């Protein structure tokens, strides 16, 4: 327990937790947006995240090889994020069109099985592309640290923490303030009524997938830059953890997914202080079990009327 009396450990561990938590939250938003509208769990979302990471990797590798990255390191990273978002958004839209739309009126189990199938297909597709070898993100920007006396924080961590918050605030405003956001909320509330009011439901569902996928792509590139190693199975564990975060906050609830992501990240970081580090994954999945038993609707609850 002596760890909790040490302010340095508390602060360092909070930074660790917020960094990984921001990534979980960005992925969790994809689960929660889709669930809010379609009441289905898109289990291929982890793979969309993985493809985004590889999209960024391909772009960065291209910039490094062509020498562009040496001249404009910042610009090439921005371009890598955009490339990743485009790739994931296209993939998300394709998935919706091919794997989910034909099953929209089928029993609820059918799209779930379709999602798991899509997930396995995408993992194996990437395995064939990269020949099952781990890939390493190029070091374009050296990692620098912001120092305050004995405390220090990496610019990468600052970037992930603030970047994820910014995107989440943006998403929240988009859903609350824009016309499309309003339409998304309307479709979530009552698909048929929304359709009668002249909302193109198919278009709104597609937009939801595109937004969720693009957010996952951002998380994918962040993971690539921060942890450097990526492989075809990288979407599996973060995908399930982000799903846990979405359930934790109340699935279908956008602020809940953000809260759940940060909560899970912090729980993992601080949990390591009280138990051996090898049980890190136990914390996430233990939390999932506890939430499902004692508060199945999550911390903030499933928002029924304001879903999306």
């Amino acid at each position, binding site marked *: 327990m002596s*760890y909790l009396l*040490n302010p*340095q*450990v508390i602060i*360092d*561990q909070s930074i*660790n*937790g917020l*960094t*990984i938590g921001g990534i979980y939250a960005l992925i969790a938003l994809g689960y929660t947006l889709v669930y809010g509208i379609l009441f289905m769990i898109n289990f291929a979302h982890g793979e969309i995240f993985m493809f985004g990471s590889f999209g960024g990797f391909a772009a960065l590798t291209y910039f490094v090889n062509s020498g562009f990255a040496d001249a404009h390191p910042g610009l090439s990273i921005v371009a890598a994020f955009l490339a990743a978002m485009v790739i994931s958004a296209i993939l998300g839209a394709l998935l919706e069109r091919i794997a989910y739309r034909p099953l929209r009126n089928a029993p609820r189990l059918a799209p779930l099985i379709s999602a798991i199938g899509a997930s396995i297909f995408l993992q194996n597709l990437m*395995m064939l592309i990269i*020949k*099952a*070898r*781990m890939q*390493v993100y190029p*070091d374009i920007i*050296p*990692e620098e640290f912001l120092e305050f006396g004995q405390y*220090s924080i*990496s610019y990468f*961590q600052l970037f992930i923490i603030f970047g994820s918050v910014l995107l989440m605030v943006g998403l929240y405003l988009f859903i609350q303030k824009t016309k499309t956001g309003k339409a998304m909320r309307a479709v979530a509330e009552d698909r048929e009524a929304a359709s009668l009011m002249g909302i193109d439901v198919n278009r709104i569902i597609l937009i939801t997938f595109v937004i969720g996928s693009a957010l996952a792509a951002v998380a994918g590139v962040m*993971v690539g830059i921060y*942890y*450097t*190693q990526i*492989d075809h*199975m*990288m979407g599996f*564990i973060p995908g399930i953890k982000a799903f846990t975060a979405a359930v934790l906050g109340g699935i279908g609830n956008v602020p809940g997914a953000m809260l759940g992501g940060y909560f899970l990240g912090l729980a*993992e*970081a*601080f*949990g*390591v*202080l009280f138990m*051996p*580090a*090898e049980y*890190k*994954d136990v914390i996430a999945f233990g939390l999932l079990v506890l939430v499902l038993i004692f508060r199945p609707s999550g911390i903030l609850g499933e928002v029924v009327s304001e879903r999306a």
Partner: protein
Amino acid sequence: MIKRTQILILLAAFCLVISPLLAHADEWGTITIPEGKPVKIGMGTMLTGDYASLGIDIKHGAEMAVLDHGPILGHSLILQAEDDGCSGPPSVAIAEKLCNDPLVVGLVGYMCSGGSKPASDIHDKYKVVMVSPSSTALELTARGIPIFFRTCWNDRIQAERAAAFAIKRGWTSVVVLHDKSDYGQSLAEDFGKNIEKRGGKVLASEGLTRGDKDFSPVLTKIKPLRPKLIYFGGMAAEGVLVARQMKRVGLRKTHFMSDDGCYTEKDFIQAGGKASNGCYVTYAKEPDPAWVKRFEAKYGPRQTFSPQAYDAATILMRAVEKAAKKQPDGSLIIGKKALRDAIAGTGYDGITGRIAFDAHGDRTGSVVKIYKVVDENGKRFFKQLEF
């Protein structure tokens, strides 16, 4: 009377038929390679996954040995490489498959100790020899399995050398990390014991999960202990992340030391970037430079165990040549015990030095050296330290 003569004639005929078989009787049975069929050398190594660059390097080493050696007594040679996934279940499946293949004489592998351990039980059941180029866990040769040999060192030596080096440098307070594998965990624990035997102190010991990427929480937990050294028992994929994230959480004065699993240019030095500078690893002495030149011209930069794999395959092929008996019809008959004894009696100058085995299947007189990642003249590489 007639009956007895008939029986005698039958008996004589039976003896005539059986005698060539009896002449080659081997208490463990024999392997017969028919005329025109190849001799197969099995191989278990990781071909896909996080440590595949290590596994493919091993495959290249053995492949080069097979190409260098050429046919055995008129039979062509085939290296049949299977993906052992660096873990138990696939290794056991490969062991069952290859031990039941009538053309397989022996196997080079498995890559990881966690695979070699359960697979060696299967090999022992069928008495098919295996020579591992890279499984270093101590217990593999301590289990009294007669068909297991290795061309690498064992972890007792590796842990001793690493601990002696650390103490000599004055790194007396250490934290031990491992990846929970048969290899990493036993090595790291052994290292810790050696440190304490020499008067040092192990402040903490923690396990990591293979495939995990985020070790900052556990490193932050370690940080207030202010260790002089973090020792990691495991492979490069995780090792390099520990080295990187140590810098990130502020363990900048703490040294990082690891094992042969991290002695790989691609997955440790290149993947680690500047964070790998100043890290220490242990590995055998450098192999024959002429061989390295030949290997790198063909396959590109070598990683870790290709020289040991080259020697392992060569030893196996030489033993087959010694134990095989060519039949008049062109087939080869190889006694399994005779083959095992031929390997046990190896005395051969390989590219990794003189190779002979002790009674347990360990190499006699193997040495482990300390290497440091240095950045000299714009080139970053493992530099062997005088110790």
